[in-house]
């Protein structure tokens, strides 16, 4: 198959902090770079910002590390060697490399995968009620559209993302009725070194704690949401300890819930990159100290190499940029910083698993796959009576995970309900042959470029 010009030295997929950093660094060393994103702006999840003209008095309080964004954006905008392609959905990458987008193919000698992450959730009765949103979704709505999911909000789930979400909602004027972290936090005391070597993280945590006290946001650990109640939309949530004790009903009009993030690596997996299963059950691309994957000239940076936060993303983008450019100046220091941050990220992962008790609170009619409306009972039937002993077969027999989201939302739950969450099941949940849906007309004429 022939591919149209121009031929780039580097294609960076994803214009979040990791991708921006990789593109700016590589172009700064004279390479021709194409930076591709399906969205309309630079910044990705962390630096998501409203369209020009849209603003709010509290907006600046949501913007941590904004100067990093401004510097990266300025370098990209000033560079003559970077083509930025917004509103391009990458649906596959072929060896060599041909980056296939919904607007035609792009050829590049190196690829940097910086496609970030998506949120993990698990089902519970009532989670499909209007008013229940994901934690990151609430954050994205707030940062991008300045919209609150409700006025009286409960934040729940697990992981560090819950902190900025609760703080952001509170800053923007919502009453946060409680932050419920599923896991007990005393485990952190066993890992003082990674915490002390990342003092900025400690300060960040202290800052949140201070703000929650000031805004009277109750913070409880060791509690999960076991039910969302309401007739047509959310009216209350029930929280309890994983074993069901300590039940409490909290009237509210919104629930922001998230069980952490999972790397978005379908493009790399389809291409054949080696992967690694992390402590929290997420699957990341395996990289070496230079961010190389197992496929030559194919790099993974930021969340695709395992969830580790914005600072790590920026460092890893710069590492990949330098390595591709063949300039090793400053590489050692960057690697050290990255390693220190990754050590902490690994500790955080072990402290925030999804408590397996979510399964105990499902009822047979709890919808597990919302796209295809598959209830938990149908999955149990497939497993117990139809011989579906793995994720793939459960999906085939029930259609769970076959709808719009292609299992991004329910994949983890199905992997657990089907095979008990074996590594094979978790990997199956991370794989998607097409990273994005692609119109048949585009697939039919995939060699043509149209802008």
């Amino acid at each position, binding site marked *: 198959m022939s591919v149209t010009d121009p031929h780039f030295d580097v294609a960076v997929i994803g214009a979040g902090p990791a991708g921006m950093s990789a593109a700016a660094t590589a172009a700064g060393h004279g390479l021709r770079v194409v930076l591709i994103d399906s969205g309309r702006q630079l910044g990705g999840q962390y630096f998501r910002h409203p369209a020009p003209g849209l603003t709010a008095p509290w907006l600046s309080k949501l913007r941590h590390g904004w100067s990093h964004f401004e510097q990266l954006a300025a370098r990209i905008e000033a560079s003559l060697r970077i083509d930025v392609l917004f509103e391009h959905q990458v649906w596959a990458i072929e060896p060599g490399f041909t980056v296939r987008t919904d607007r035609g193919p792009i050829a590049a000698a190196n690829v940097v995968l910086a496609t970030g992450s998506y949120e993990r959730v698990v089902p519970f009765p009532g989670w499909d009620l209007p008013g229940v949103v994901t934690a990151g979704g609430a954050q994205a709505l707030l940062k991008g559209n300045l919209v609150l999911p409700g006025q009286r909000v409960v934040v729940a789930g697990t992981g560090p993302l819950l902190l900025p979400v609760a703080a952001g909602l509170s800053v923007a004027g919502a009453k946060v009725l409680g932050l419920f972290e599923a896991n007990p936090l005393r485990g952190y005391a066993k890992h003082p070194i990674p915490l002390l070597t990342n003092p900025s993280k400690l300060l960040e945590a202290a800052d949140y704690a201070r703000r929650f006290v000031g805004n009277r946001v109750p913070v409880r650990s060791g509690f999960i949401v076991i039910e969302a109640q309401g007739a047509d939309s959310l009216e209350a949530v029930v929280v309890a300890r994983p074993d069901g004790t300590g039940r409490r009903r909290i009237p509210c009009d919104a629930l922001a819930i998230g069980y952490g993030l999972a790397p978005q690596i379908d493009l790399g997996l389809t291409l054949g990159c080696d992967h690694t299963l992390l402590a929290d059950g997420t699957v990341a691309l395996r990289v070496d100290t230079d961010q190389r994957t197992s496929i030559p000239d194919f790099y993974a940076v930021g969340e695709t190499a395992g969830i580790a936060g914005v600072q790590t993303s920026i460092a890893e983008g710069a590492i990949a940029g330098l390595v591709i450019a063949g300039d090793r100046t400053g590489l050692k220091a960057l690697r050290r910083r990255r390693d220190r941050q990754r050590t902490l990220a690994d500790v955080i992962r072990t402290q925030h698993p999804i408590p397996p008790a979510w399964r105990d609170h499902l009822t047979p009619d709890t919808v597990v796959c919302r796209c295809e409306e598959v209830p938990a009972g149908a999955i149990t039937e*497939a497993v117990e009576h139809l*011989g579906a002993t793995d994720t793939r*077969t459960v999906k085939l027999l029930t259609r769970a995970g076959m709808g719009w989201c292609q299992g991004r939302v329910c994949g983890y739950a199905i992997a657990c309900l089907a095979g008990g969450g074996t590594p094979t099941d978790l990997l199956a949940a991370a794989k998607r042959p097409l990273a994005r849906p692609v119109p*048949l*007309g585009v697939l*039919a004429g995939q060699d043509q470029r149209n802008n």
Partner: protein
Amino acid sequence: MVIGAGVIGAACALYAARAGFTVTVVDSGPVAGGTSGAGEGNLLVSDKEPGPELELAMRSQELWRLLAAEGLGEGFEYEAKGGLVVAATASDFSALRAFAAAQEAAGVIADEVAADSLAEFEPYLAQGFAGGFWYPQDAQVMPALATARMLQASGAELFLGSAVTGLLTSGDGAVRGVRTTRGEIPARYVVNAAGLWSAAIAAMAGSALPVQPRRGFVLVTEPLPALIRHKVYSAAYVSDVASSDAALQSSAVVEGTPSGPVLIGASRERVGLDRTPSYEALQRLAAQAVEMFPFLERIDVQRYYCGFRPYLPDHLPAIGPDARIAGLFHACGHEGAGIGLAPATGELIAALLVGEKPQVDAEPFRPARFEEVEAA
């Protein structure tokens, strides 16, 4: 005892149980974990030329109807929707006409549809086709569900996650069971329905069954209302199916499903068990589908999958007794028609087990035929 919980193994289990046998099914993986979970569920007579395969398909069509009438059909989305074969040019049309005439002599119903009547069958079909043929006997099932429901209905005992590693024989050389990774399982008769892996089971008996994989990709669109009513494919498909060329062939069969997505399949090529995506195969399928139904141009493909058909060089399955070991039977190599041919295959095996005269002549499917070729 049946080796393989694919559609063929499920059908063998069902008809053997109905013939009075106590049946166990072993599979190294889950139910429908092989090709039966990676194909489409077209039950076609329209694509088959007169001969033994068509006879088997005609009998199978009858059995699918009976299974559906028993109430099993709802559990596997049986739809007697019929197929429409369209010809792009006048010469394709006359070739199709000759093909259909021969099929009619073998009992297939095939009605000629003039160019200006095609829209009555498929309102969204592209203009400009020379004409087509309507095959009311073509039908459709959801293959993985068909497999699971037939197994369930058979009442067979399932040993999943147990791979067969050897055959057990008694002093007189007859089979007496199988050895698996989880222990030995005794059986008076063993049916090899291991699909792509049947050659390995046959080899345990010292027999040669040259089953090879023939890869196919299928595109799956976003869910749509029922805009495509029947199975629609181009007359070129028939020659692809019959081809023995290893190179890529594709002619799209387009069909809606009860759950909404349209399936577009399938390409055919012999490349071993290579799962690397072939963007060329995907492109061809997409282009052909859009040619037939222009509105599909803007419809999203959500995913695609690939599967491997168990191919035998003469395009006929192997169904019948092993030449060497008494009590061992083979039921494999159904290539791209295993779903359609499953019930008749199961019925045939059951008849052979009982020693009755089968409904369909078993002679052309003799597993030993490949060894005779070699010897000759």
